[in-house]
């Protein structure tokens, strides 16, 4: 029983990361119908930006004097990482995706470009900063609360909370604001969007800013929870988060959120009760089962074609 509760907490934390990353996938997909395969690596970049930001602020680079308290460093690191990561996301959009869109390239070519951008980010990082792993400094001391055999840390609680709040925020933005409506409109028919007086590119850039900054947020939290950073840290979790987003119903914010937690739960519970080698096997079989019962995912709506 205790270990069940413990594992539920574990799953909530792990699912939070899937959810946060899936939300970013979902935002970009929701607007451009583009599977932004670079998103996992944008998440990685977020973690690295946070790493550099934090070591800089902690005074390890010698530019500013050491001695800033950990919580202040964290409070500054998060926005720094979010801004830099957004800049990265927007750069990708400007340099790689937008020209292709302008040329009317097939959607899948943009997807492949995204995949390539991801590879460049991963390996560029490796080439630039070398192969050694980076250790994310401990900014806020970890406090372990033990409640009758169940251990919770302050970090775990924070991660879960952030994921839920991010979801609520994005849900509001996409569902209830005019710019959110514009985002949905772009996904359906980009041609007619400027006819409504909507600056398409601005909305798209806004989307990338939103998606990337939430990836950065996930990156910071991830780096704090799993403080060994490596250039490929975003690849696997990125793919899986994408799968989670699709199972939730790609393009739907609710779906991405639910899908992320679903995957987190299945993975943790499989490992807890079966040999861990069955994890992918069982997790993905369950997801496939869901998709074959509900082909558009949990919350997705099929694009119906009127003939």
């Amino acid at each position, binding site marked *: 029983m205790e270990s069940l509760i413990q594992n539920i907490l574990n799953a909530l934390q792990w699912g939070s990361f899937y959810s946060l990353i899936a939300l970013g996938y979902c935002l970009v997909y929701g607007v451009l119908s583009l599977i932004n395969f670079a998103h996992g690596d944008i998440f990685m970049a977020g973690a690295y930006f946070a790493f550099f930001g934090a070591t800089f602020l902690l005074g390890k680079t010698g530019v500013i004097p050491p001695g800033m308290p950990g919580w202040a460093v964290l409070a500054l690191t998060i926005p720094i990482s979010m801004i830099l990561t957004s800049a990265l996301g927007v750069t990708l959009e400007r340099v790689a995706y937008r020209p292709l869109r302008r*040329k009317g390239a097939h959607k899948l070519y943009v997807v492949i470009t995204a995949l390539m951008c991801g590879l460049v980010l991963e390996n560029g990082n490796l080439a630039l900063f070398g192969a050694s792993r980076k250790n994310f400094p401990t900014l806020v001391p970890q406090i372990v609360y033990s409640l009758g055999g169940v251990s919770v840390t302050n970090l775990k609680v924070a991660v879960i909370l952030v994921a839920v709040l991010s979801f609520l925020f994005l849900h509001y933005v996409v569902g209830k604001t*005019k710019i959110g409506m514009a985002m949905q409109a772009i996904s359906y*028919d980009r*041609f*007619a969007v*400027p*006819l409504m*007086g909507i600056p398409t590119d601005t909305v798209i850039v806004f989307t990338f800013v939103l998606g990337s900054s939430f990836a950065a947020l996930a990156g910071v939290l991830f780096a704090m929870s799993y403080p060994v950073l490596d250039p490929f840290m975003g690849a696997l979790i990125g793919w899986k988060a994408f799968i989670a987003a699709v199972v939730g119903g790609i393009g739907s914010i609710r779906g991405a959120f639910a899908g992320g937690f679903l995957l987190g739960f299945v993975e943790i519970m499989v490992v807890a009760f079966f040999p861990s080698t069955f994890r992918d096997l069982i997790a993905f079989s369950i997801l496939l089962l869901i998709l074959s019962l509900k082909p558009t995912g949990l919350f997705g709506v099929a*694009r119906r074609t*009127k003939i």
Partner: protein
Amino acid sequence: MLLEIRDLRVKYGNIEALHGISFHVEKGEIVTLIGANGAGKTTTLHSIMRLPPPEAPKVLSGDILFEGMSLLSTEPHDVVRKLHVALVPEGRHIFGNLTVMENLTLATYARKDGASAISADLDRVFDLFPRLAERRNQRSESLSGGEQQMLALGRALMSKCQTLLLDEPSMGLSPLLMYEMFRTLKRLNEQGLTILLIEQNARLALRFAHRGYVLDTGEIVASGSSAELAADPAVKKAYLGG
């Protein structure tokens, strides 16, 4: 002069679609462009709206003037929000994943006037097309063809435009609605709306418009008042049908 096209040449990829056309629209006028399929009518409207490639053409030479100012470096959304031009595009291009109501709301994206003006316009659209009011919460992709056309028109009317470009607005509408629509447009024109109309039913278009131009494979081959064009035997033979 509200809108003037000067010697406009445009191309899609490597294919020139307009070979230097010139025409103009005065404020408060209804002008129609008629011509066979593929003559370049839609291309002209897309050029005026400054829509980006690949769907829209690239300007090779010539100029598009709006109240004397060149539009060539204007962004399409600025054509809508700053110059108050609206286009009802060929093929409707409604946002199928949004409901009817959301489609109409989105059209007010650039509007700065208050909620009451917007809701008055909404009432006007629903008056004209009661069917839309019935379907207001339906995802618009499942509307029937004609209903989608109504929505496309309604959207343009919601944007508080002063110049309206219409690309085959009657396509797929029932005769009753088509006449109703033209009557409404006429009324709006009397209230000051300028209209540039493309219509396959040339006879109808010439009945409705003040002036007209005949476009043939990217060139203007005839122009004049509607009555003149309707009486021109060459035009009659080629475009008005038997």
